[in-house]
């Protein structure tokens, strides 16, 4: 994954670039709006991480709007300290694909970038999802593991569908809250964990190989690979 980071804060830059490199990605960096604009327009990136308030006369939203106007469709994640709902809406309206507020956990950023690049590859047309011997048919809404058919509640189905669509990626609790329940707030308690453990009971409990795993300090992943 080739990432462009447009960010003026040195510590954040260091932290993100190092993290991305450790995760096996390449990252370019621009410290002001002008450079960011130039790189984003001229180089092919898989995803762009854009700060909103940048030194110089071009701010993040202006860059995004200019890119979208010129027909660039690279997925963009806006990274900003502006956390009001109205600000989020402005960011997404300008053409951003996702919005993460500072301070943030690196795991959250990485998971969201993974999700964005995966979405850009256009995987949503699928009607059947498969991870190892776990199969989900989105049309008939049937879930099977091996030869056994599993019965899931509607919300459990939605949760599993989201995890399957992001198989082999880390999915954070916030991502689950936003995408499965459409809750854009922090519910304070570990309710998501309870939902995950219920789902785990159904899809993993009676089988030798667990698929739904907890990733410490980050979230969950549904994967068939042993790490």
């Amino acid at each position, binding site marked *: 994954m080739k990432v462009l980071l447009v960010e003026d804060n040195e510590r954040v830059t260091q932290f993100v670039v190092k993290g991305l490199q450790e995760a096996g990605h390449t990252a370019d960096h621009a410290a002001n709006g002008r450079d960011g604009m130039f790189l984003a327009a001229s180089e092919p990136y898989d995803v762009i991480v854009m700060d909103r308030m940048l030194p110089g006369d071009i701010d993040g939203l202006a860059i995004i709007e200019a890119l979208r106007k010129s027909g660039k469709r690279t997925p963009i994640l806006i990274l900003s300290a502006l956390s009001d*709902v109205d600000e989020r809406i402005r960011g997404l309206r300008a053409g951003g694909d996702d919005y993460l507020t500072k*301070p943030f956990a690196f795991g959250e950023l990485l998971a969201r970038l993974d999700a964005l690049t995966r979405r850009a590859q256009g995987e949503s047309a699928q009607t059947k999802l498969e991870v190892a011997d776990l199969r989900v048919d989105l049309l008939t809404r049937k879930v099977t593991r091996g030869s056994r058919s599993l019965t899931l509640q509607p*919300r459990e189905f939605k949760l599993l569908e989201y995890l399957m669509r992001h198989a082999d990626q880390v999915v954070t609790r916030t991502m689950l809250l936003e995408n499965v329940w459409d*809750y854009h707030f922090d519910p304070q*308690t570990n309710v998501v964990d309870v*939902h995950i453990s219920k789902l785990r009971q159904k899809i993993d409990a009676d089988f030798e190989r667990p698929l739904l795993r907890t990733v410490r*300090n980050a979230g969950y992943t549904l994967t068939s690979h042993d790490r």
Partner: protein
Amino acid sequence: MKFLRSSALTLAVGYIGLGLAALALFAAPLWYAWRVTIQEGRNEILQSDALRLTEVFRREGAQGLISYVNTRVGMQIAGERLLLVADAALNPLAGNLTAWPASVPANPGTYIVKVELDSRRTDVRRVTDVALVHAILPGGYHLIVGRDTERYLPLERRFWYALAGAVAILSVLGTFGGILIRRALMARIHGIGQTISAIIQGDLSQRLPTHHSGDELNTLSRTINGMLDQIEQLIDGIRNVSNSIAHDLRTPLAELRSRLEVLALTKPAAEHTFAEIDAAVADVDGVIRIFNALLRLAEIDTGLRRSGFVPVDLAAIAAAAVEFYQPAAELRGTALSLEIRGPAPIRGDPVLLAQALGNLIDNALKYTPGDGTITVAVRRAGDSSVEIVVADSGPGIPDAEKSKAVERFYRGDASRCTPGVGLGLSLVDAVARLHGSELILEDNHPGLRARMVMTQDTRQITRVARATSEEGELQHEPVYP
């Protein structure tokens, strides 16, 4: 001049001007009536005089009339009257006119014509308007009985004098009244100004003087007082919150600091160090969480989010929230149930309403013992409101603490040993207030009943009904019992 710029003066001058205009309009018909009365009275007198002279002529003949007129003129009992008797050829026979006036029409009648008169006093001949009765007597004799209209001028002048008097009285009274009104008004405005100055200086406890009358200034004063109450409350709130933030953030930050310091001092094995770093990250997350909650509260308090109100179904939001928390309740062995009857449409912010309901359920879960019950109910209360109730069988909140429970960072004695920062109910209350309601905490015997009453969106009811009948069943809608 300051006085000239006074709004009270402008008002007084305006009223005087209006009064004068009204007086002028009023005087016009009066003047007309006055003139008509004078004319008619004058003509009547002249006609009856002419009649009397005709009577003399009829009784005593032409000579009799001539001598009668001569006597009257000679005795000067004619007064200001003009008398003239002439023969058929219009040769004057008797009277106080020297010649027959050419301007008198040939036919008998009552006229106003220009006649040349000789003034007895000054011997100057002058032309003047004369009102006269011209009668033709038997035998071709002509008779004129007239009166100089100038004699009536004093009468007309009296009318104008009276009008001028009225104008003068009105002006004086108006000016005087204007000054009085201005003084009264200025006294009150000055009082208001002084109070406001004191408030600007920083004494927010000052209030504008009000009394029981419902005049405009008083109403305005009361409104301003209401605004001041709100400002004072907000400032107090900010002051309390700043204090609480400082206090509540110090604890986790101190913990974090000591954790890192111990790490730096003891330099334990790598494995232990990493565990401590994880714990430190969790500490920081806790602080961030408090900040996020505070930012959210600030966002709600400014009322900005009201612009994002959309039609929402509270029943659906409650159903989703109960479904969301159900596994957590099951894990604890608590019975979490939902009571809804049909859609409960209101206008609101779906994210905030969901968060508020979530906080209430979360709170109930935290304090209700394992085998307890929690009921979430959304029902119509009256024709135009919707009631949301979250009731639990936990320990409840003592009456004395109920009002404090919604304050920021307040944590009751019972909650000392549970996780949380004391912002949950504050947020619920803020959301309720944003939606024109408030959070009411009641006794559930045993337990706590948290209640909010919101205004129903009646426009939406018809829309939902239409959508339901058109589509058969709405997707993602809960199934209502």
